[in-house]
């Protein structure tokens, strides 16, 4: 499958790493890509349900572009949010809706995480798409 350049870069970066510990370190580095959702804006509607740690995602659409703000208490979840931000921020709603979470599998990110957190990534991904769909309808 062909991915947008930004996602292809992420896939290649992870594929180059053999050591599991380093892979997780790189994942955590992606936390810096998150446009942080301030604690005072955390609420039930932007809470990611089904994630073992506390995670919030807020999606907005400005000038036909998707932008997400996010926050989480665990660094690895922040890393996943960072990757998700790269995948969606600045894209059109249509592009975001056409995206599949398979890129995370291709990068080997999901196998490097516990099932609960892998599901957490899927949940966050689904939540972003759902919010985009709601916004454009």
């Amino acid at each position, binding site marked *: 499958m062909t991915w947008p350049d930004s996602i292809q870069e992420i896939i290649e970066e992870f594929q180059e790493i053999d050591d599991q*510990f380093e892979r997780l370190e790189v994942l955590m580095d992606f936390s810096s890509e998150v446009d942080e959702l301030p604690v005072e804006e955390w609420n039930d509607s932007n809470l990611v349900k089904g994630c073992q740690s506390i995670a919030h995602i807020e999606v907005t659409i400005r000038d036909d572009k998707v932008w997400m703000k996010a926050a989480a208490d665990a*660094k*690895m979840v922040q890393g996943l949010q960072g990757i998700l931000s790269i995948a969606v921020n600045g894209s059109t709603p249509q592009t975001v809706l056409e995206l599949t979470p398979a890129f995370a599998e291709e990068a080997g990110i999901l196998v490097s*995480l516990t099932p609960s957190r892998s599901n957490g990534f899927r949940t966050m991904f689904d939540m972003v798409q759902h919010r985009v769909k709601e916004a454009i309808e």
Partner: protein
Amino acid sequence: MGDWMKQDFPIFSREINGRPLVYLDNAATTQKPSCVIDAMSNYYSSSNANVHRAVHTLAGEATEGYEECRKLLKSRYNCDYAVITSGTTEAINLAARAWGEYNLRAGDAVVLTEMEHHSDIVPWQMLAERIAIELRFIPVENGELDMEAFDVALEGAKLVCVVHTSNVLGIRNPVEEIINKSKAVNAKVLIDAAQAVPHELIDFKELGADFLAFSAHKMCGPTGIGALLISEDAFSEMEPFMGGGDMIETVTLQGSTYQSNEHKFEAGTPRIAEGFGWAAALEWISKVDLESHHTRLLDIARDVSRQLKEKGMTVYSSLGPEDAAVVSFTHPTIHPEDFARLLDAQGIAVRTGHHCAQPLMERLGVNGTIRASFYLYNDESDASIFLSGIDRVLEAMA
């Protein structure tokens, strides 16, 4: 010390993320020695049949193997009645249904503690919803049960349910004192011994409780099987709550009569292969000197605890002389799940989360902890790899 024993456990030849497995999640479940795996496999490959009714050879072998498990339980733990269940959870639910529902009335008090596993809270809450019993929870102060509060709560109580050894903290509660005091006011006592039987040999009759619940898988046996040991007195007050095959004496369309022994509480085809496996585990563990291992593992856990504190961690386990070798801790800033994933990347298995004890977590003022729990096959080398693993995590997260 643990090295020779690890040879009995095939899983220790496995590598996790390119590193030899260091398994420190024993309070969740223990690994299985070859004899347990072989016993289950041999049952399926050469003796598979249903138990109790048929007269053919295989059925005889299956029945004998399964009942051998019960026989070993009764002799090891000195009890007259051992109902085989799917584990500790089902054992406690069985006590709640088969004894609680028939012997408690609306307004009767049941004493529990804040330290209980969810499996010793929820069945009683469900019973409270059905028959309006009163639940009284003994608070935990500085990691220990508040025994003054216990004395007050005991007044007029009909049943006391206490965890013998905490799965979160490893602390061993003063169960003998609790049982003596409860008996003095004619209250029945249920002990959740899931974390106790792996570490110490319990004499059920000498202990004096009415119910003792535990699981095979925390003592090197298979998952999916456990037991409820029951005193003669309590057994005589119980009624079956699950109906079906194997638990009946006669069935007519007008009604049924039930067996008088433990089978009365074991409706349906039981866990036969698991029974074979548990019997093998019970025989295996009977050759292990639990007391000397307890001392050895406690020393290791104390050393780990000391070093974790030096590295800036908060340790919640007090590791008293009778406690289990469980070290529950948190780091001031690193999320427990991040910690555990980075340890797993180094082949080290630990537990994180609320450990099915959310009320206790609330009392400790944390959302979750990281828990390293040690068992028979663990040794100083595991502790040392674990501590080096911690160092690498701290370095990476600095």
